């Protein structure tokens, strides 16, 4: 499905410095039983967010009003583990549009791009800077500019550029998805299939 267009986003951010956050943490398997795409945000980080009785755990960042925003700033090796796209649906459904980390797992990053959540990879130094800035002032804003491929800490104007391939960038900016592209070249694919 075509999705929201993404050009620039300036907002506050939610920090999650833990490393190796895997997709089982983002959305535990027992919440994968839906046959539609809606409602996964309620179970985002379920077991970190709620105790076994379903009460919010005070010390988890999503339960702390101090932090909010459409940008999730995450620790190294974010999204490792299963290929469940539900993890990105949960992130999207909760309200995030961009995830920043110094290192993403492959399939997770692909899944993000496929549904219109922008994964931004920055240097370890820059991510530390972001964590420090958010800790010092939870209302600090981050600006993510896709056309110029830069991410900026608005308060200090410190900035870094990030990579994204031109095709995916165009897709994100225009809200196109890969199926649109593939359906457009179906003759070519049919010809190829015949040779297999």
């Amino acid at each position, binding site marked *: *499905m075509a999705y929201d267009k993404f050009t620039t986003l300036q907002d506050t951010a939610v920090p999650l*410095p*833990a*490393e*190796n956050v*895997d997709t*089982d*943490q983002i959305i*535990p*398997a*027992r919440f*994968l*039983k*839906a*046959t*539609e*795409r809606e409602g996964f945000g309620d179970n985002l980080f379920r*077991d970190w967010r709620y105790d*076994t009785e379903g009460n919010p755990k005070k010390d988890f960042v999503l339960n702390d009003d101090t932090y909010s925003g459409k940008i999730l700033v995450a*620790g*190294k*090796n974010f999204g*490792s*583990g*299963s*290929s*469940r*796209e*539900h993890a*990105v649906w949960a992130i999207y459904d909760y309200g995030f549009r961009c995830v920043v980390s110094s*290192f*993403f*797992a*492959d*399939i997770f990053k*692909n*899944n993000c791009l*496929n*549904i219109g959540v922008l994964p931004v990879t920055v240097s370890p130094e820059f991510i530390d800077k972001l964590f420090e800035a958010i800790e010092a002032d939870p209302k600090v804003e981050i600006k993510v500019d896709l056309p110029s491929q830069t991410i900026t800490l608005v308060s200090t104007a410190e900035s870094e550029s990030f990579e994204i*391939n*031109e*095709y*995916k960038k165009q897709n994100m900016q225009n809200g196109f*998805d*890969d*199926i649109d*592209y*593939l*359906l457009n*070249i*179906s003759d*070519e*694919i049919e010809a*190829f*299939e015949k040779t*297999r």
Partner: protein
Amino acid sequence: MEKTTLFDKVWDSHVVRSVPSGPDVFFIDKHFIHEVTSPVAFLNLEKRGIGVKYPERTIATPDHNVPTIDQDQTIKDKLSRMQVEKLRNNCDKYGIELHDLGSAHHGIVHVIGPELGVTQPGMTIVCGDSHTSTHGAFGAIAFGIGTSEVEMVLATQCIMQSKPKKMRISVEGKLSKGVTSKDIILYIISKISAAGATGYFVEYAGSAIRSLSMEARMTICNMSIEMGARGGLIAPDQTTFDYLKGKQYAPKGADWESAVAKWQELKTDEGAEFDKEYHFDAEDIEPMITYGTNPGMGIKVKDRIPTTDGMEGSNKKSYLKSLEYMGFNPGEPVLGKKVDFVFVGSCTNGRIEDIRSVAQFVKGKKKADNITAWIVPGSREVEKLAHEEGLVQILEDAGFKLRQPGCSACLAMNDDKIPAGKYAVSTSNRNFEGRQGPGARTMLASPLTVAAVAVTGEITDPREVF
């Protein structure tokens, strides 16, 4: 002529076109689907008003959320039942081959693909499940995809993929007694870390790998994703051909001969370059076990949990958080720790060879009283063989029971959940927090080590119980 790797050969021959400064349009030979990651893909096809382009290239089975007892009865859990029914309806509607609960070839998708001979050398294979890498053992490029991509494959038989970098991991030498392919892969991941191969596709090579059976090779390729790799593959050889010969979907007669001739070409040329290479010595590998909450946190069973020396900042914090979850302290040994559950199964180690090795080990011994054991065959075929070979009897005499096929406690989507705080030693592939149930503490090991634990009731080196 340019020297290319096995991976290049298979990849390049499946590129329909390359998008300038973008990904390749990548053709998929075989597509596996299951009940959890496919319903939304079908729903989206409907919304777009399009159908399944090549239904004969997709094969389905319900495995992730199915119960492992009473499979002949209606699934009790409503949501699971709905997912399985959706899968049935979708397969019916679009003409997709379904290996349903109770049928002769029902099982975990990565176990039945090879068993049926659907998985073949040189193919491209995808599935909405990260352990699709299992099929790489046949010299196929196989990897997990997200639901949007499942939709792409159903609609067009292609996905858009940038070609990953290439890594070769060679293991040379002879494995010692009591050391299995699970130990090889846990050892490799502990050396290069849970993210060490992110961005790469791995080829496993070397004499120790060549000496392995197909089942054992599948275990290794299966866990490629646990070091971040998109997948892993092994060049096909006589072992591969012998395994495939006569399988239901394997080529027959003259087709077989020409297929084998073609498959024999599928290898890395002498002198071809990789972006990264690792070399390991088989003699250094011993029975392994994980002590933390990612598969890179593994040690030799007889070793101590690493201390925090040399760690700092968020790295140290994550490490200590992980140990806290497990209830372990830095620097302590794992040997002798009490265990509550053992799980033998999953697409990593739920094949007949695994059940055989457990049965052989426990033969004439008894299960420890403190252990609850779940032994779950990867497929109906495995279950059938276990009966025919008398393994079920041996297991029962030792106090174990064989359940019915499915993913089971590997991801705890069904009722097979390890209770909070309890310790499970498992043959599956992930020890993430809560993977086997909220609060469950998982330690990954080989079927042999798990069998030893089941008998002693505590963390045990299998070589000490022979």
